[in-house]
């Protein structure tokens, strides 16, 4: 049975590629996963590997041809096997057609977007989802393997599949280890540079999968979700004292951080405001108010950030929250995060307090309705009954999806949150 090799899609914005060179000639045998041809995209020259073994029966395009993605470029089969009639040289190939003419011609042959009226922009501005970007055309992958790859930010194009027809399965993902990043850069940094040398050259740093995913997602959210922000300042003196007291009785590894208190307080407050523990479901014109209160906590990792999830944070004692978050954050930073660690949050928090940040605003973690950005606890002058005194204050800013909620609700949430942060014994009872 003859197999067709098509122009692969190497990146979500690739529409066509130039066949630069045939590496295996017609009539020669080819092994599975060995290089069949070289193609050039907008960005690079790439080798096309054969997913099949056999004899290259026919090249369907010539060197130098510009070929749209998914168009058949070669036929591989058993020696002496006939090429299917519809792929014989000269026979018209089903759409999309092979083009041996310049690109401009191709653009002309498509209907101009404006002619189609309201429908055309739809086609033109399709946003690729993360899955699409991670799963290039022509790569077979089991749903489970794709899920794991997505969670770990692994580029499936780097993986060879061992399943039927080269399908990537779970075992292949687990056997795969990301190559150590850029040993060259590390070596270069070690070289001594005299003070008066000319400025160092620009460094080109390719986006990691995680960096690219964060970028794409955040750009989309910031553009499409109507954010508004409400800031509240909290008196943290009582909480800081309480924290010191309780931590005296707790082993080092289980000590409760300020953020653990905030996670618990945020979760308990969400019980009162179920509309903020929600997801916007635009497709169905509805808001999903989640039953469980699972608080996401943003954790900085190399080249990006991950949100680890404290499940049922409203129902867990502080000490358990502390232990769980510590373990998950450690796994996130070691690159050993588990799927459960990062899935299922219903509301998120981001805390830059440890970096002396007075105040910042966070971008919503989709599809959640809100995220709480927390600054440092600082000693500040406070006016009490007309006198200036030293106080311990902290500012927190809630970013909210305006499609789900409004300013008044956000403000009331922050006000309710004060009950827990400023009378922190409530968090222990």
């Amino acid at each position, binding site marked *: 049975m003859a197999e067709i090799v098509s122009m692969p899609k190497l990146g979500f914005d690739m529409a066509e590629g130039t066949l630069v060179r045939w590496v295996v000639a017609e009539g020669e045998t080819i092994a599975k996963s060995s290089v069949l041809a070289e193609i050039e995209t907008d960005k690079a020259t790439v080798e096309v590997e054969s997913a099949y073994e056999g004899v290259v029966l026919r090249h369907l395009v010539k060197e130098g041809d510009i070929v749209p993605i998914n168009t058949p470029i070669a036929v591989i089969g058993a020696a002496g096997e006939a090429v299917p009639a519809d792929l014989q040289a000269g026979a018209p190939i089903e759409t999309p057609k092979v083009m041996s003419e310049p690109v401009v011609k191709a653009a002309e042959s498509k209907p101009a977007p404006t002619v189609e009226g309201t429908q055309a922009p739809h086609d033109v501005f399709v946003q690729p989802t993360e899955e699409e970007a991670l799963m290039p055309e022509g790569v077979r992958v*089991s*749903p*489970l393997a794709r*899920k794991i790859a997505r969670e770990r930010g692994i580029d499936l194009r780097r993986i060879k599949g061992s*399943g039927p027809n080269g399908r990537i*399965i*779970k075992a292949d993902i687990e056997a795969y280890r990301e190559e150590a990043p850029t040993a060259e850069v590390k070596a270069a940094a070690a070289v001594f540079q005299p003070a008066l040398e000319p400025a160092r050259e620009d460094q080109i740093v390719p986006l990691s999968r995680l960096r690219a995913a964060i970028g794409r997602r955040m750009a989309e959210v910031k553009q499409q979700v109507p954010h508004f922000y409400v800031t509240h300042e909290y008196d943290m003196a009582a909480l800081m004292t309480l924290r010191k007291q309780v931590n005296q009785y707790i082993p080092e590894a289980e000590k409760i951080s300020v953020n653990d208190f905030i996670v618990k307080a945020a979760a308990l407050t969400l019980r009162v405001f179920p509309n903020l523990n929600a997801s916007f479901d635009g497709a169905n014109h509805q808001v999903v108010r989640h039953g469980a209160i699972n608080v996401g906590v943003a954790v900085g990792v190399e080249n990006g950030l991950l949100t680890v999830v404290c499940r049922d944070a409203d129902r867990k004692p502080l000490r358990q929250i502390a232990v769980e978050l510590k373990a998950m954050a450690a796994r996130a930073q070691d690159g050993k995060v588990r799927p459960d660690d990062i899935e299922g949050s219903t509301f998120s928090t981001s805390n830059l307090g440890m970096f002396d940040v007075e105040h910042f605003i966070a971008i919503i973690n989709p599809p959640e309705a809100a995220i709480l950005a927390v600054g440092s606890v600082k000693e500040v002058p406070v006016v009490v009954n007309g006198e200036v005194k030293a106080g311990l204050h902290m500012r927190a800013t809630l970013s909210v999806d305006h499609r789900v909620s409004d300013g008044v609700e956000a403000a009331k949430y922050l006000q309710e949150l004060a009950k827990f942060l400023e009378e922190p014994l409530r968090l222990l009872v």
Partner: protein
Amino acid sequence: MAKITMREAISQALWEEMERDENVFILGEEVGVWGGSYAVTKGFYDHFGEKRVRDTPISEAAIIGAAIGAALTGLRPVAEMMTINFAFSAFDHIVNETAKLHYMFGGQFKVPLVIRAPGGGGRQLAATHSQTPDAIFAHFPGLKVVAPGTPEDAKGLLKAAIRTDDPVLYIENATIYQLRGEVPDGDYTIPIGKSKIYRPGKHATLVTYSKMVDFSNKAADQLAQDGIEVEIVDLRSLRPLDMGPVIESFKKTNRAVIVEEGWQSFGVGAEVAARIYEEAFDYADAPVKRVAQKEVPLPYNRNLEQMALPQVADIVKAVKEVL
């Protein structure tokens, strides 16, 4: 725990329920004086009398029609179809009346009717008398469909079927009446609509029911010699279909083979596979495979008949294909 046959298990369930509740009675062709075509009701006529063990004319529509009337007026009939193939003659009464009366009269009536029907191929009874049309009946809301594969389930499910106020089609497989298994002592029931893990394992999930539980178990024994541990889920009931243990197992093994004796197209395997994809798509590491009867009217010729029916070797092969 006594080790008894499927036949004894079914017979015991009927006997005990008739002793327990005088409203329970049996009707069907040759169930009385003759003792049942498969000897399930042997001795019942002498013990319970002709009023409660009623021989009927050879008219399946009349049997089910009479049973519906009896059920509507408060009795608990157990109607026997000599084989499930003959149930087609009563199809309208089964799917249009039995399954729907409770609903169409706004819940005013209950239809506590059990229809026993042996099916299955492999005894050279030719195309019209060898079918496994379980999926057809399971298609209709309003009718519960159970099909046990072990004596324990056969006894417990039949008792539960007789005691429930809903109509139940109780499908037996005529080639496993001699299959033996442990049965708990004393009175017990098995809940309708509950699947169970029949055999634990970790490499692949075999979803099956009725006779194919035994075949799947034999396949699992063979696979175990190669170090392959399959988990077998026995559906036991087709409607309501309990996917819980199937999904739980699939999330663990990431691979599934569904084994049924009936034809593959539009069958139990199709339903289970669709539900796996709907409920656990992200856990699939290989396409779900189905083992079923070849798509032909079952041949009379012994060799051809065996070729058309699913065999242990087919199950072993399918499991290896999904690994």
